[in-house]
């Protein structure tokens, strides 16, 4: 008999057709079917979703907070990637 803790699952919910699945939290379940059923009960009691994804938490790989600068800093000085970088005449109303 196994007395170990049920694994942890991350839950993602699609609020309605056309939107992406969004992380809403986590829960424990013995297997994937139970994870989906529990996610239904815990995270969609008020029509919050039309679709559920569950992923066992151990399969989520995350970037290190200490790598934040190395990963994201380079985008900081590339303001030419934004439309406001370009000087255009006022009379050109919408571009």
């Amino acid at each position, binding site marked *: 008999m196994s*007395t*170990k803790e049920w694994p942890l699952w991350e839950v993602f919910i699609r609020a309605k057709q056309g939107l992406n699945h969004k992380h809403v*939290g986590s*829960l424990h379940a*013995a*297997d994937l079917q139970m994870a989906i059923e529990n996610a239904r*009960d*815990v995270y969609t009691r008020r029509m919050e979703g039309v679709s559920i994804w569950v992923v066992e938490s151990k399969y989520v790989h995350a970037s290190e*907070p200490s790598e934040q600068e190395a990963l994201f800093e380079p985008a900081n000085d590339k303001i030419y990637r934004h439309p406001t970088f370009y000087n255009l005449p006022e009379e050109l109303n919408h571009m």
Partner: protein
Amino acid sequence: MEIKLEEIFQEKIDQEIKIEPRDWMPEKYRKTLLRQISQHAHSEIVGMLPEGNWITRAPNLRRKVALLAKVQDEAGHGLYLYSAAETLGMSRDEMLEELHSGKAKYSSIFNYPTLTWADMGAIGWLVDGAAIMNQVPLCRTSYGPYARAMVRVCKEESFHQRQGYEIMLTLSKGTEAQKAMAQDALNRWWWPSIMMFGPNDDNSPNSAQSMKWKIKRFSNDELRQKFVDVTVAQTEILGLTIPDKDLKWNAERGHYDFGTINWDEFFQVVAGNGPCNKQRLKARVDAWENGAWVREAASAYAEKREAKVKNQIEAA
């Protein structure tokens, strides 16, 4: 090194940047949060018991479905909060172990008995009302997973208070006996409800640090005053009387003055000597122990199915 990290941490807090699970945090911040969030989760779970007591005896179907939904929400709130607490490095089983051994606390309010149907009204109105007062600022607490859990909790909590108030309203407009039942419930739940905000500020040693770390946004006494101020008008609409002879409007302060809280009673209940402490804890321990075979069976089934899938893949 440690000092430098702590400075960076406090700077983030001061700039209202949320702290996330993998970020560096002072050990005391982690411990304080873990204690607070797990205690909050335990309160939601134990909080199902006093109301669960009345589900089968609700006076009609409308009241029954509402109470059932409310108790189910509380289970959900407990689960959101346990998940948030787990991100701080304590397992769910360890937290439950602390609850069952009596090491971890839960809100003392749930150690009072629910004697009549009017108690369902008083709990929704006052206990959930006080909880909302406490919880709304927690939606902006500095730890990301806790704040996100609280946003969900607060969204769902407002129906709880409204359903409670509606019960009180119906009773207070009913027969003399019904009105007396509502007043009796108010008499019993008033003082424990205002104790829910915790000890007075000058007797709450950890508050200053929690405010600096923005775990808390308002002091216990500030929140208690706010609760008293809004509840007086609600009581007048019901035509009931708050059981406090010292309660009166203070124009100078712009707040209601109220009587002295019996802190001796509060600390007695916290220490385990309230009317229902033993009964509540026993109910939780029994649920855990009697449910062990279900947890084991589900694990065994999951393992068996996994093995079967593995075999199929290998055979293919």
